[in-house]
């Protein structure tokens, strides 16, 4: 079976932590859905790990919101937001491995029309 055309993940990493929220779907996630996924990832982390990535979640949120206002982003995309205060690789990654991410609803409609 063919893989869905829009795939990627948001990932919280360090030497001791690896939590992610992935997507693989026929329609590109909108930027609002991207922010929801980011929230869900945050919820998966312990209070301590959330606190360590407080600023990095804000940076990722800014990136997704900017993308939403600027036509989304198309794969391949990878961004790492690091917390340099820690020596254990504490960071938050955004990976878009196929298709589009953080688009506006209008762009989703256009992409669907184009594919059909």
């Amino acid at each position, binding site marked *: 079976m063919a893989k869905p055309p829009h795939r990627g993940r948001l990932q919280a990493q360090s030497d001791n932590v690896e939590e992610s929220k992935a997507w693989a779907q026929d329609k590109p996630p909108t930027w609002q859905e991207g922010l929801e996924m980011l929230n869900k990832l945050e919820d998966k982390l312990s209070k301590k790990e959330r606190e360590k990535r407080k600023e990095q979640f804000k940076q990722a949120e800014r990136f997704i919101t*900017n*993308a939403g206002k*600027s*036509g*989304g*982003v*198309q*794969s*391949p*995309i*990878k*961004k*790492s*937001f*690091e917390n*340099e205060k820690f020596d254990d*690789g504490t960071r938050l*990654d955004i*990976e878009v*491995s196929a298709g*589009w991410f953080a*688009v506006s609803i209008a*762009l989703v409609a256009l992409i669907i029309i184009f594919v059909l």
Partner: protein
Amino acid sequence: MKHLFKNFLEDKKIYRLNERYYQSMFNEVLAQEVQPFYRTTYGNGESFLDGNPIFSTAYHDRIVRIIQKSPSSKPAWRVWLDQFDNLEELVISLELTDQSSPLVRQFVQKWLVERLPKEDMQELISEQKARPLPS
């Protein structure tokens, strides 16, 4: 220690020169014209211009991704191994200085040209971590 392309985040022209600096370095190390791997633009064509990443390339089944930070008094240098899809990735997060630039070249050479196994690369990363760059 001297920072290179100091105002790359403030001046678009300097940012473009900075990108070309990596492009030339990678071209030399790989002895061919390399292409950036990751996109660094939004759907409307506008560039991120945030250094995250400032340059990347894929060579066979391996990637190098460079994240460049703005200058500070204690230059950042962090390296880790990661994956993107089915490709192995070396990530270098740094402040570009006259000290870190030769190190980038060395790590790219080891990872993409000599194709060091991941375990050996990890050892090299740990060795370098134990010897911080001079401030």
